[in-house]
């Protein structure tokens, strides 16, 4: 089957798109690059995206100037890179493939929650018409750690009574690489 490329996911665009600090954008970008390089992919790798019933492909890329690969390899481990790398790719995918054009954050007891929103919202209502974004990452899928079960798991964690917000579940797998996006309304 012909692999039609729908577009590019540029890790260097994270700061602009996600409206996070330069430091946070750098952290997400580096974690994602670490995970892709760890799985022996190179700049320009194609990522397969399963969105609803559709399968599309994107090219992942990043600027290589000023990227110190030795320092990068020492700065992350598999756990960090999987978690934050998946966040980077999920954010880029959601901005690319949904009508949302902004990312909002809120704090929880264990970390930062991501929400999908709109740039043109009132300056006092950041979560107006927002949707929740649930992200999960897997470095290397295997029999006991599958993307499909992660998606089911995430969908089940959002209770059936949760009707106020649409919920996007994105699970990213780095070794193949591919991502599954599911919208639970």
């Amino acid at each position, binding site marked *: 089957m012909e692999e039609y490329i729908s577009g590019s996911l540029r890790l260097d665009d994270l700061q602009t798109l996600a409206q996070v600090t330069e430091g946070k954008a750098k952290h997400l970008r580096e974690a994602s690059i670490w995970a892709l390089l760890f799985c022996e992919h190179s700049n320009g790798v194609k990522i397969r995206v399963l969105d609803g019933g559709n399968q599309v492909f994107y090219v992942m890329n990043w600027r290589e100037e000023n990227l110190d690969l030795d320092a990068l390899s020492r700065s992350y481990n598999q756990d960090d890179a999987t978690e934050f790398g998946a966040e980077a790719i999920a954010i880029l995918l959601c901005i690319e493939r949904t009508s949302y054009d902004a990312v909002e954050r809120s704090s929880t007891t264990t970390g930062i929650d991501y929400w999908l929103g709109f740039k043109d919202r009132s300056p006092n209502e950041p979560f107006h018409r927002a949707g929740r974004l649930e992200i999960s990452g897997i470095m290397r899928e295997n029999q006991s750690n599958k993307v499909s079960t992660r998606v*089911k798991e995430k969908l089940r964690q959002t209770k059936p009574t949760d009707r106020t917000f649409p919920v996007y579940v994105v699970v990213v797998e780095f070794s193949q690489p591919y991502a599954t996006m599911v919208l639970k309304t």
Partner: protein
Amino acid sequence: MTTVNDLHPKAMDLAEMAFCHRRKGDEEKAKSLFTDALRLEQQAALLLPADRASEPSRSILFRSAASLAYNGRDYEAADWLIANGLAGFPPPEIKEELKNLYEDVNFMRHLAASGISLNENQWLMTLSGNATAYGLAPVDHLMFRVEKVTILFYRTLERLLGKPYRTSRGISKEIRDNYALYVKAFVPASFAVSFQFGQPHWQLSLLPEDEIANIVAPESVVDEVMDCLQILDGSQPENLRGKFNDETYYENFVGLAKQIAPDGDSIQLVGFKSIRNGQEKPVALRKSREALREAIQPVRANLSEGAIWQPNTYRGILKYASSAGVGKHGTVKLTETETGVVHEIRVPIALMKDVVQPYYEELVKVVTRSEKGKLYLEEVSLDS
């Protein structure tokens, strides 16, 4: 005029930095950043009037601010922010999250006020719930968990030492000698117990097969147990799987954690606290056994693709237990109290010794799933 958008993103930037410092172990800096973030997030939340038009932003901001207060250990501020969030018109899920946060805050306040001064080689477990409402915990709630926590400690130690999963026999003498775990104190008129672990004193073993190849600090065993429990109780319990190279150890950990977890009304929270670098490290296990079963079950390796999760509950006497021969499962037989019907139930080997065998000849409640006509055990508990 200052808007939410002027304050909230700055608060989140500070919160990101705070979590980053906490990950690196710089608790002092993390706490200071959480406090700075809280000040901004609280200001942002207070800009919105408590009316329906402000939702869901208002309640999300209050929940976020209360979480920052919780992380900065400012429990009074967290209480106040939760109350403010609930006083508006929060959507159902944010309302539930605010209520859950209130329980966490209450529990942490209790931990802080338990009157126990811990040092670096001690570890505290505390129970909270209706069974402890008058400052006394029924002994079975406490002792049962003391036993399971002890098993969890030694299983985690064996895993970190790189030992293969032990399906029979007890803990080796060498491990017991080097990693003694003591119950230090039951707190009077309370529902807390502290454990103390000794520091290993290494001597060459006369039995080379028993010799411990790697040295693992007991503190790191406690840290590992606490980290795993925190992941299990968090929003991404599926990430726990990634910490285990051995599926049997993983299933054993989840099985023991379910036994330790709150059982509903009687015990609603099980908390742990340790001290590292002079800073308290608390973990609250708030998910009930049922909630953990729901959260973790789909990523269990032994649930084959396409299998349907349909829990069946049986009550009766656990009459017979046999360990596995060569397979991954042992079997137990359960005689239903009311009907006398006998069920043969397969038990993952990871649960056989530590979770199921202690219930032999007891009146139990067993939750199973059915797969290809066979019953597989998911959970067992005393039928009280």
